[in-house]
C-alpha cells in the first residue's frame, strides 16, 4: 500500500496485513518502526516470533515473518510516493506439536536466494534429502498461505467475510508487487 511518507505507507501496509491475518487469528502483528537514521531492512512478525495457533481443523499454527524496506517512487503523486516493499519472507504452517509442516521462504542475497518451499514429514528413503530440499516456488503471499490453512488444513475462519477480505487484499498485493513469480 503506497503512502505519502514511509510512516504512512507502513501504517497502510500493516492495516491491510492485519485485516488479512484476522481471517484466522486474533494475534497482533508486531513491526519495527520507521526511523530515517537507519536504512533498513525492517521486520515484522505475527505474535512474538512464535507460530500462532489457529482454531479448528487439525490444530495447525501459522508463522509469518517478513523483512521490508521503504521505496520512494518520485514519479507518482505525493500521496503514493512511498511504498513498503517485501525484502525477505518466511511463511510456515506447523502441526499441533509445533513441528514445521511446510515453509515458504524467500531471502535473496543468502544461500538459496530464490523463492522456495520446504516440506517436512516425508518418511521414505529420501527423508534426509527432503528435509533439506529447497523446492522451487513462485512468490507466495500471506493471503495464499492463509487460504491454504483454511481450505487444506481446515483452520476455522474467524470472519464471515474472509473470502472477500482475502480476495481484496490479494488483488492489492498483485497490483503493488514489483516481482510476481521468481526472484534472486
Amino acid at each position, binding site marked *: 500500500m503506497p503512502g505519502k511518507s514511509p510512516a504512512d505507507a*507502513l501504517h497502510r501496509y*500493516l*492495516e491491510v*496485513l*492485519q*485485516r488479512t*491475518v*484476522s481471517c484466522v487469528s*486474533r494475534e*497482533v*502483528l*508486531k*513491526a*519495527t*518502526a520507521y*526511523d530515517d537514521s*537507519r536504512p*533498513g*531492512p*525492517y*521486520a515484522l*512478525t505475527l505474535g*512474538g*516470533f512464535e507460530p500462532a495457533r489457529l482454531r479448528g481443523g487439525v490444530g495447525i499454527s501459522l*508463522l509469518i*515473518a*517478513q*523483512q521490508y524496506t521503504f521505496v520512494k517512487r518520485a514519479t507518482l503523486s505525493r500521496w503514493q510516493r512511498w511504498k513498503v516493499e517485501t525484502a*525477505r519472507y*518466511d511463511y510456515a504452517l506447523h502441526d499441533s506439536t509445533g513441528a*514445521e509442516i511446510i*515453509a515458504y*521462504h524467500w*531471502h535473496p542475497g*543468502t*544461500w*538459496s536466494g530464490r523463492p522456495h518451499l*520446504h516440506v517436512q514429514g516425508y518418511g521414505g528413503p529420501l527423508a534426509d534429502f527432503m*528435509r*533439506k*530440499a*529447497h523446492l522451487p516456488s513462485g512468490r507466495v503471499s500471506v493471503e495464499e498461505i492463509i487460504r491454504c490453512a483454511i481450505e487444506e488444513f481446515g483452520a476455522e*475462519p*474467524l*470472519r*464471515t*467475510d474472509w473470502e472477500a477480505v482475502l480476495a481484496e487484499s490479494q488483488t492489492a498485493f498483485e497490483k503493488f508487487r514489483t516481482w510476481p513469480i521468481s526472484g534472486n
Partner: protein
Amino acid sequence: MSTAAAPGYEILSRADGRELFDRKAREWLGISGEEFVRRYDAGEYDGVDCSTKPKLFRLLMLLPFAR
C-alpha cells in the same frame, strides 16, 4: 464469527524490539540479543542454511528488531 474490525497492529519502539529479540535469542540459542548481533556482524552466521537451523534462521529474519 463476525466481520468486526481487525485488532490493531503494534509498531514497537527500538527498546521493545530489542527486548523481544533478546528474549528469543536467550531462549533458542542461550545468548543475548546483543551477543547475537555481535556474532552476526562478525560473519559467524554467514551461509546459514534455512533448512537445517530453523530457529537461527528465524532470528536472522527478525534481526531488525535487535538493531
